[in-house]
């Protein structure tokens, strides 16, 4: 399946920032704006980044939808960076009009709840999008770390070459395929909907945060039982951080749980890849082709 890669960014291009899900005060987006500015881009902060909302969301559904819609439709805007995830894209996704976006694709940047947008766009419009850090990751002096810089490189069109340390649970091998994936809970939540992704012959990556151990087990079983794991080209397990346990302990670590669920699959599997809710979060272009090489001494994910 061929995929459209939106144009990479040139100096002087404009990046829009929206908050399509949870609320975020503009102060927390400031470093991100300054950094993008420093990279040579103009930044246009949408109304949802200045929201007066008193509840969970960065505005009503209508406000969030219209802010995102405007950014999608505005041809001056070459990329849209989502300020944060949280929860909320599922509430507006079916209201978005992708007509102009399809004609003039642009990069959509974010992760976590933004997985809904990525999957929806990939499944329905075959347009690549960017799974990468959002505004909060720029704060606390982190705006220059390799993970933030991987976003800079990705936007400029520099092919990615990421390495990660070997892990005892890895399955050695090599795969060349399109990459898809994101937040495990959301990938499961989308199963059976219009935004569901097909994973056959793809490299799939997964990450999650704050889930109960039993629920990680259940989510993986859902992927498995809906046929999403059996014909992968390769699998990348990112960070599963801040996991929670029940009063009656589950008795396994989160990677043990995942490893156990993957027994029997022959494709290469890379554990501990830097894609996560922590700062270790390399930019990945969903829909783009990568080579995953899992070897004894190192795992490499390289854009091809």
């Amino acid at each position, binding site marked *: 399946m061929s995929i459209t890669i939106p144009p990479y960014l040139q100096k002087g291009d404009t990046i829009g920032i929206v908050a399509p899900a*949870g609320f975020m005060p503009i102060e927390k987006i400031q470093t991100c704006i300054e950094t993008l500015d420093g990279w040579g881009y103009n930044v246009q902060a949408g109304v949802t980044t200045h929201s007066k909302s*008193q*509840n*969970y*969301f960065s505005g009503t559904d209508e406000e969030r939808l219209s802010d995102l819609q405007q950014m999608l439709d505005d041809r001056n805007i070459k990329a849209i960076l989502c300020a944060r995830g949280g*929860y909320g894209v*599922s*509430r507006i996704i*079916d209201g978005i009009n992708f007509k102009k976006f399809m004609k003039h694709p642009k990069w959509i940047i974010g992760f976590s709840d933004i997985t809904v947008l990525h999957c929806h766009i990939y499944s329905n419009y075959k347009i690549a999008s960017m799974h990468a850090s959002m505004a909060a990751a720029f704060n606390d002096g982190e705006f220059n770390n390799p993970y933030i810089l991987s976003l800079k490189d990705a936007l400029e069109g520099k092919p990615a070459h990421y390495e990660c340390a070997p892990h005892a649970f890895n399955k050695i091998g090599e795969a060349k395929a399109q990459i898809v994936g994101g937040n495990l809970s959301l990938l*499961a*939540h*989308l*199963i*059976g*909907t*219009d*935004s*569901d992704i097909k994973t056959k012959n793809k490299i799939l990556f997964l990450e999650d945060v704050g889930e109960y151990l*039993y629920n990680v*087990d*259940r*989510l993986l*079983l*859902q992927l498995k*039982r*809906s*046929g*999403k794991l059996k014909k992968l080209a390769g699998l990348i397990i990112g960070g599963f951080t801040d996991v929670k346990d*029940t009063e*009656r*302990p*589950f*008795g*396994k670590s989160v990677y043990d749980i995942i490893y156990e669920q993957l027994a029997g699959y022959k494709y290469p599997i890379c554990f501990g890849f830097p894609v996560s809710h922590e700062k270790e979060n390399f930019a990945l272009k969903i829909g783009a082709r990568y080579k995953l090489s899992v070897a004894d001494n190192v795992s490499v994910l390289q854009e091809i």
Partner: protein
Amino acid sequence: MDRKHFLGTATTVIAGTTFPFKKSFDIGADEEFVFKKPPYLKNGDSIGITAPAGFITQEEIQPALQVMQNWGYKIQLGDTIGKRDFTFGGTDEERLNDLQKMLDDPKLKAIMCARGGYGSIRIVDRINWARFKLNPKWVIGFSDITVLHSHIHNNFQVASIHSKMTNSFPFDWNTAEPIQIETIISISDALSGKKMKYSAVPNPASKQGVAEGILVGGNLKTIESLSGSASDIKTDGKILFVEDTGEYLYSIDRMFWNLRRTGKLKNLKALIVGGFKVKPDDPGEEFGKTLEEIVLEKINDFKFPVCFDFPVGHQKNNFALKCGVKHRLLVTEKEVTLTEII
């Protein structure tokens, strides 16, 4: 359209032609879902108790054991009762074997799951249903047991009982609250084949109307986790009930979007919202919508009745419901009733 009349004339021309309205007849046609009812229980029949998910001690099931024996049933305790593998009532193999034995044993007329928790989904694909299909029996439970209900409904069209489990029987029948006793007795009523009738306290947010259909449902989170799998719930033309506990409002909202976006709401006959023990929002993260608002905005373009506060869920007023059995739901300003019909 006068459907009867249309069908009458259609049969004469249908051969060799395409039937342009077929689709509209598929939707909501109850006749297509023929659910088998396992035989109801008689005095002296045997009920098995097994733990397909979380663990339970011998001591914890004593009240259920006593009460069900008093009802005139023999109780057969599975090997998993009193077993523990961390959070589970034994390893996957132990839980699977115990349940399998009970499904296969022709002497057992019903299987009560000891408790929920988590774990049924880890074994459901390895269960051999061949004998159960030939000789269906009542599978009883809720919460995590929604996996078994939905799997059985979807694959074998066999009715089952959504109800409290052994861990909800009051330790002392004499000091138990009336609602505890009533709900436990509803299990006996369901098992012995009494026609069920329930009423709920009217909630002004409910959408009035009347509907008839086969009742299916269960724990909302569990239903979402079955989406796309062989155990996925089929809701077209049915009355769907959902309940959940310990979830944030945002998570409940997301789950109702999942129901909507997977097409599980659009062809319902009715929606029954049971108990939702909502986890309070974290400070500064107030969701800003009530449960009722969350539900109603997902179904405002549909006409079917909706009732809130139905007595089903992780709560004391959790009555036994026969899933896979036809019911009539009536929602008016003054009363809400759910009645089993033939």
